[in-house]
């Protein structure tokens, strides 16, 4: 059985992935409209405050959610949920950087075994290093008994 405290000591709060983005207005509009969004700041690129919707920002966090040296826990990570804290509008055509670290690791025990829950946090900055948004991706892994 994996020692959660050891995992936390080894992996928490250490950036393991840095990605660069430039958001495309067309995709931002498609996502907002598909969700039923009607506000022009999310659906009209010519609006002076045109920006990405929270769901679109969360989509930037897809991809590698675990450090490359993170041990295998047996099961395939399932998407347990997403959260976002918005600090400032995330705009199209701007150079963005997303830095990801593990924010929390904890477990829950049930009748069918132990689940490991991992929170991967991406902090998104613009090219002035202004912190625009923070997304949390919650992963749930059912631990295999022989790990």
């Amino acid at each position, binding site marked *: 059985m994996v020692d959660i405290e050891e995992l936390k000591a080894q992996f928490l709060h250490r950036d393991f992935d840095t990605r660069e983005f430039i958001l495309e207005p067309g995709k931002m509009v*498609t996502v907002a409209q598909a969700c039923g969004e009607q506000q022009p700041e999310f659906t009209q690129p010519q609006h002076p405050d045109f920006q990405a919707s929270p769901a*679109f920002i969360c989509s930037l966090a897809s991809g590698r959610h675990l450090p490359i040296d993170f041990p295998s826990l047996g099961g395939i990570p399932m998407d347990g949920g997403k959260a976002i804290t918005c600090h400032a509008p995330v705009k199209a055509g701007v150079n963005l950087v997303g830095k990801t670290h593990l924010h929390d690791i904890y477990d829950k025990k049930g009748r069918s075994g132990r689940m490991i829950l991992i929170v991967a946090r991406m902090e998104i900055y613009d090219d002035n290093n202004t912190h625009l948004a923070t997304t949390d991706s919650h992963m749930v892994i059912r631990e295999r008994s022989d790990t």
Partner: protein
Amino acid sequence: MSITTIHDVEFGAELPTFVPDTSLANTSQFAHAVGWGGGRFEDHERARKEGLPGALVPGIMGMGFLTSTIHNWCPAATIEHIDTVFRAPMLADDPCIIGAVVTDIDEDTGLVELDMTLKNSADETRVFGTARVKLPV
């Protein structure tokens, strides 16, 4: 009732329900735009071959439905934080409905807390969450 400022909000009030478009055509368009194209989001038959009950609605699209519910209720609301739990998969072409209730109000800062749920046609909760939104004071 139209909500324009924090003073229009009542503790315990329910937001107008929202029925989003969960058609496969719409959910696959979303998936494609965020780079998640593929059978599990775009084709029922291909999703079933992967062992799924049908094509899925992307989880973050559920979050998008919740944020649209908030903006439809109060167009001037700014979402500061939203936290969603993907309790179980949502299937494309299965209608769903979103409900929300006001659980806290701070009239000095304009902050409102909401509890939100997304239920499928069998009245099962598939996504739930909380949001903190800021309204004009």
